């Protein structure tokens, strides 16, 4: 699979989703309802069973200029991956698994992010956002960025 220049935004998000689906096991793999997903590419609009992971496009900038008379663009795309969990332990475990899945799958031949067309993996931040109360959903918002060359 290689980055599709005509659809690179959603293509990048879908690549990250596929990478996480391959590398992270759903803690509710045996009990999650069949019409619900563990990894989503939007915040859920209906009731879901936690834990879940959401992946969103979080904006883009031009990383560098490509020179006179060149139509190539080097862009930097930020991706927000959020681990929504039932407790602190699960929140930390999912965040760690997400980071490690992306970090260790860059140079893998054919299935890695570099071969796909996403370069310069950067871990930008992790922000914990917890809802009030012991039953409140706990989450870690992780932001990553990738550079890409669009010809």
């Amino acid at each position, binding site marked *: 699979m290689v980055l599709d220049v005509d659809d690179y935004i959603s293509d990048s998000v879908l690549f990250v989703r596929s990478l996480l689906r391959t590398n992270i096991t759903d803690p509710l793999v045996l009990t999650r309802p069949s019409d619900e997903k563990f990894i989503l590419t939007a*915040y859920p609009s209906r009731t879901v069973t936690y834990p879940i992971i959401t992946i969103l496009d*979080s*904006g*883009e*900038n*031009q990383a560098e200029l490509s020179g006179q008379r060149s139509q190539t663009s080097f862009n930097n795309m*930020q991706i927000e991956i*959020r681990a*929504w969990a039932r407790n602190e332990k699960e929140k930390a475990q999912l965040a760690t698994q997400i980071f490690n899945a992306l970090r260790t799958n860059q140079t893998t031949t054919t299935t890695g992010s570099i071969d796909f067309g996403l370069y310069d993996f950067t871990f930008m931040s992790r*922000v*914990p*956002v917890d*809802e009030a109360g012991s039953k409140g*959903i706990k*989450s870690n*918002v992780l*932001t990553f960025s990738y550079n890409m060359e669009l010809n």
Partner: protein
Amino acid sequence: MAKNLSISVDVGLALMFLKSTEKNVEIGVDKAFSEIAMFMEGEVKQSLSGNRAEPKRVDTGHLRQSVKGTTPKRFSAKIESNLPYAAPIEYGTTKIKPGRHFRNTLTRNKSKVISYINDEIKKQT
């Protein structure tokens, strides 16, 4: 009869000039970061007020008032709010839609931030 020919080059003045330029650039860039902090603080406040792409998020005005731009160390600017509900508003929860005021402000103004630094370097060299 050949005469001895010697050439001496003294780069002391040139080095002094380069050192003073380097010092001026450092001071200038540091000043640029103070300007960036003020500018970005204003931009986040404008975003919260509904004057940018994000929807208005002003109820009592406490969040908007709490946004502060600082330069905690050299060559860095930080825009922050110390309110406990600032992060849930920015990132959203299961009940609140994410505001994205801080992050969108950064994405929108990245080139402007770079131009603040470039302009200051140009002024000093």
